[in-house]
């Protein structure tokens, strides 16, 4: 959790210094979700994340170096610099930048595992905004009908980009899943230990009973949507700053442990950042010949 937070803080600095390409969406404030969910999963399980994927990725893989490299557009980044911040892939971890489009794909991967007789399950992360996309409901119907062991995690941070929940969302989160006969739960907490406990049975049930579940985690992002401006009310942000998951956790750690964790994370991240900085940039020639399907012939 600390690693994610400190990573993201560096990312914002690197952007300011112009060392990163494109854009980014930081996970600051939502870290408890990734930790609580992903620590219940096995290596063989599939995780499909979204545009706000750094936290999910780091909790899953710990690979800060690869992610720094990817965001710096380097050949040794996770995807050779091709994907950038929101298009990641490593082992069983994936993310993509088209909201909602990931839902059936995650379902299909999970279904394939089920059909092959593996007991791997899938986890799909969506935001409240992504629930605006119709394909999510097509997928709910299908995973319910076909009993696909997929956990859909909706991280409701009360905003889709700049649009408040009540402006873009009608009705109830959990009812949207229950209408398809998918069991749905929700938690409103940034207490990682509490969440971890609560989610345990859900993941267990998915694996054991080979059926989908829907999990809504109400939370808040403490930084801007991407790098840019943040127009949310100051007192709202303040209210949630009190509930910062790190703040909740910290008092439970012995102070010297907290301190040494900070030091270790700092060391790891400094190293990773530096290593990424040293990586070469990719080039097309090295990376792949122009593919077969570009057949326009050379001039005579």
């Amino acid at each position, binding site marked *: 959790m600390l690693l994610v937070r400190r990573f993201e803080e560096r990312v914002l600095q690197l952007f300011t210094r112009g060392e990163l390409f494109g854009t980014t969406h930081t996970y600051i404030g939502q870290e408890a979700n990734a930790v609580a969910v992903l620590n219940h999963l096995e290596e063989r399980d599939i995780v499909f994340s979204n545009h706000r994927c750094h936290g999910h990725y780091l909790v899953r893989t710990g690979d800060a170096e690869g992610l720094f490299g990817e965001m710096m557009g380097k050949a040794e980044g996770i995807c050779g610099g091709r994907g950038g911040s929101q298009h990641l*892939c490593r082992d069983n971890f994936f993310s993509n930048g088209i909201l909602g489009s990931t839902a059936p794909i995650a379902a299909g991967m999970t279904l394939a595992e089920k059909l092959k007789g593996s007991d791997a399950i899938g986890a799909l992360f969506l935001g409240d905004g992504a629930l605006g996309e119709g394909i999510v409901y097509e997928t709910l119907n299908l995973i319910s009908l076909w009993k696909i062991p997929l956990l859909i995690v909706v991280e409701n941070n009360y905003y889709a980009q700049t649009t408040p929940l009540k402006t873009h969302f009608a009705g109830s989160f959990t009812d949207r899943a229950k209408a398809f006969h998918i069991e749905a739960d929700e938690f409103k907490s940034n207490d990682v230990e509490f969440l971890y406990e609560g989610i345990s049975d859900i993941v267990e049930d998915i694996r054991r009973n080979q059926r989908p579940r829907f999990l809504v985690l109400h939370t808040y992002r403490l930084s801007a949507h991407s790098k840019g401006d943040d127009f949310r009310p100051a007192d709202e942000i303040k209210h949630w700053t009190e509930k910062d998951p790190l703040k909740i956790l910290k008092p439970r750690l012995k102070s010297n442990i907290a301190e040494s964790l900070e030091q270790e994370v700092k060391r790891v991240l400094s190293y990773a950042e530096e290593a990424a900085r040293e990586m070469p940039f990719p080039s097309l020639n090295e990376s792949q010949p122009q593919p077969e399907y570009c057949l326009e012939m050379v001039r005579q």
Partner: protein
Amino acid sequence: MRYFESLNAALHQLMREDERVYVMGEDILDPYGGAFKVTKGLSESFPGRTLTTPVSEAAITGIAIGMAMRGLKPVLEIMFGDFVTLIADQLVNSAVKFNWMYNHQVSVPLVIRVPMGGRRGYGPTHSQTLESMFMGVPGLKIIAPSHYHNPGDLLKYAVSKNNQPLMFIENKRLYPQKLVTVDSVGKAGDFYIKQLANGENGYPTISLSLMKNEPPQVTLITYGGMAPFAIEAAMEVFMNEEILVEILLPSALKPLPVKDILPSVRTTGKVVVAEEGVKTSGWGAELASVLNKNAFNQLKCPVERVGAKEFPIPSSMPLEKEILPGAEDIVEAITLLMGD
């Protein structure tokens, strides 16, 4: 054997021989066996691997993509080609991108079967020829056999030898057509048949000529459901005006089999490109541009394109006939070229 039977037999064989093959789509279960019967019998023989789906084209495409990423070989039927608009995002922003964007960590060997075309009176939303929308999508293959090809063989090749998203276009009017068989002297009907790029990439181009040793005067390039009209037109201009046409029927639309096409074009210098889809920015636009570039000095006159007029496809058959290209349009284009 008929066109749809060839495809059906291929699916049976694929499923029999490779248990990673899954066939998916709307209403594909027996006894119905799919809107055009291509999937008939599969659900009885392979119940666990024949997945009939809700009416959710986008999501079932996504599910098939996911399955392909995990080592299965899904073959997805989109009931009518007009609905490819609903799967455009899954195709363009996911399926074709993943292999390269994820730095080759995954591949998506997905075959999507798409019945296209009009001339059945189904009207504006069930008659279109939309493959040209996807001709410019990097990472996608597009295959469209005619009844001079063996569609089943092509489908088998596509499913078993292919490692990327592939759109397999089947013209609805071809389904009931008998596959053309070549006799012992290499003829089918009045035409000598040659297979170009013989299996080189699994998607051959077929060449048809009325004379064996005489050089053709015009090259007519078309594909899929336009093949019968090409035959008709070639016969007509030969009978009426003794114009000798070589017909080329590529089975691959993307990538364009330029190597199969250039020799004939360089011989004749006169080219007609015909397609059922709208002419503007169609398949023929790319082809004409490529020929302009690669056979510039041999072209004796502009490449003539034949295609649909820019309207929706009406239900009324007489009106549809005016809008979709037919043999007369090809004849007219050939005659125009010969005037030059």
